[in-house]
């Protein structure tokens, strides 16, 4: 209870402190008077936010890049050793491949399923539409650790002869087959696919909500025009609706892609990277904590960061285009 009280006090004090800080900054600017006031004030307003960004993102980015050329304790330069060691190890290459697999599969399926559900739910009566969307959207509120406890009951495995308490094995044994240790099944990366199912379960609702709003925003007259021209529903969807919601499609795709690149929790909780399910988010964690190797951990982050650069570039370009249209 004391902790809650503390937290509430922190919220109060934090917000009060922020108000006082801005008031002081505002006073400071005003005291300069005249032209200088107008010149300085905007920068003072953005200063605290920028300080947080610089301290937690910009400075660490540079520092991480520096550490990636140093040894495990960051006490000695080792050149490119961290990178060559990592890329030279077949374990790390498997890890990299798994991450690429996640990136190749999850964003596309998330968009496709989200769009499908959005379009289908759109045709239901408002009440059913609302309830079905709430159900699909709900897992977004659940942590991946929580999701792990949920999906344990789906993927659980008991040796043959014992009663199965995992849903999938219950079905498999009811059909007369032997139970399968799903999460150990690394042929064709099947276990990774099962972990991806968990992410889809959590993500599709988000994709659905955004795409549904976009589909509803398509102007009716463009659809009418297509109908008058005799187009069937399918070609209306692909030729008229999809092009108009393409911006949202890309948005959902990119945000899911970035999320997938950083995926950590699901794998850590479900398999901890065993049976060839490792991903680079988890590998980073293991290098940092299990191996206490700052250099390698930093090198992994630098690779991750390089992979996000094209996305960043696209994001900025996209934003500028939107702004110039507005």
């Amino acid at each position, binding site marked *: 209870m004391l902790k809650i009280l503390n*937290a509430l006090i922190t*919220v109060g004090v*934090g*917000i009060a402190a*922020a*108000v006082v800080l801005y008031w002081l900054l*505002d006073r400071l600017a005003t005291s300069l008077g005249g032209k200088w006031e107008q010149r300085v004030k*905007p920068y003072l*307003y953005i200063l605290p936010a920028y300080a947080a960004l610089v301290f*937690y*993102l910009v*400075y*660490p980015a540079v520092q991480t890049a520096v550490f990636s050329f140093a040894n495990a304790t960051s006490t000695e330069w080792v050149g490119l050793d961290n990178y060559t060691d990592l890329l030279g190890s077949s374990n790390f290459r498997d890890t990299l491949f798994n991450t690429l697999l996640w990136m190749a599969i999850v964003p596309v399926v998330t968009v496709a399923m989200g769009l499908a559900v959005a379009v*289908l*739910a759109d*045709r*239901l*009566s*408002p009440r059913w*539409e609302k309830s*079905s969307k709430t*159900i699909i*959207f*709900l*897992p*977004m509120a659940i*942590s*991946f*650790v*929580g999701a792990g*406890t*949920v999906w344990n*009951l*789906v993927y659980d495995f008991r040796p043959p002869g014992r*009663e199965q*308490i995992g849903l999938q094995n219950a079905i498999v044994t009811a059909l007369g087959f032997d139970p399968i240790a799903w999460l150990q099944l690394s042929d064709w990366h099947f276990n990774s696919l099962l972990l991806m199912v968990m992410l889809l379960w959590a993500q599709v609702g*988000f994709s659905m*909500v955004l795409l549904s*709003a976009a589909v509803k*925003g398509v*102007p009716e007259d463009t*659809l009418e025009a297509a109908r008058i021209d005799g187009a069937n529903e399918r070609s209306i969807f692909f030729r008229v609706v999809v092009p*108009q919601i393409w911006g949202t499609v890309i948005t959902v795709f*990119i*945000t*899911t892609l*970035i*999320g*997938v*690149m*950083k995926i950590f*929790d699901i794998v850590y909780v479900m398999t*901890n990277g065993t049976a060839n399910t490792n991903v680079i*988010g988890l590998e*980073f964690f293991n290098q940092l904590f299990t191996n206490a190797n700052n250099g390698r951990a930093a090198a992994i*982050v630098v690779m*991750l960061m390089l992979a*996000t650069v094209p*996305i960043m570039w696209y*994001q900025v370009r996209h934003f500028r285009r939107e702004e110039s249209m507005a």
Partner: protein
Amino acid sequence: MTQTQTTMAAATPTPKTRKRQPSREGSPQKAGWFARIVVLILCFLWIVPVIGLFLTSFRPRDDANETGWWTLFWTPSAWGRMSLDNYSQAIDQGGLGNAFINSLAITLPATFIPVLVAAFAAYAFAFMEFPGRDFLFLAVVSLLVVPNYIAFVPILRIYGDLELAGTFPAVWLAHIGFGMSLAVYILRNYMATLPRSIIESAKIDGASHFQTFYRLVLPMSVPALAAFAIFQFLWVWNDLLVALIFVGPGDNAPITVALRNNLMGQAGAGQHLLTAGGFLTMVLPILVFLFMQRFFVRGLTAGAVKG
């Protein structure tokens, strides 16, 4: 929930200003059987695992670990054995009670403090003219996609030197930093859509920027503030990685870390405790989500819905 951090970000400025009469959807006669059945099956698949967790969390140890939860449907006697024992055990022995409070203590400040800080910056970006404004805002946009992994190694060292590691302020500050680009981005985009005439007339009436911000812009931005707050709440509450790195196990561990370390993995507490613990971690975010869903969706789709 890590992955959704950038999510709403990119999402906010989606297509603009198209509005249409609600004529196409919502007409039940058009709902083909195909659509109904597919949606029904999907909803069933989505919700069944959660129902399994919920039911299992009340079952006694032997039942939960030796028989599937679905057997409840044909063994009426098993319902009588259900109780809240798993919950009290998870809360006391599993340490989830303390961890739940830790989670609240971490989440509340990390949710509310960045909102105000971001709102000031967003105001400057939306309503003030200054050299470098566009560049500085584009920098915020590009930081949206920077993975928070880059912060861990350097910040952990700094926290080590300052003896901050393992404390609440360590995570508060980290979450404030990680959430800031998203907050500034959402709020600025929302403020940019507010009618400029109102702000102009306030200026003519002699209101300072400070007054305009407090009296006009902040109250008018409540939908966006709420959307971000809900988002940040879910993100911080559900976070595992940041908490593992900056807090770690122990007295201050939030509920995600406690569930993982005390009940999962080698600790292998058995399904009865795992499910009870799992449900404890998700009950609050689910409630917040259900009650605030309208705000949340409105914030997510702000760009698309504005007409």
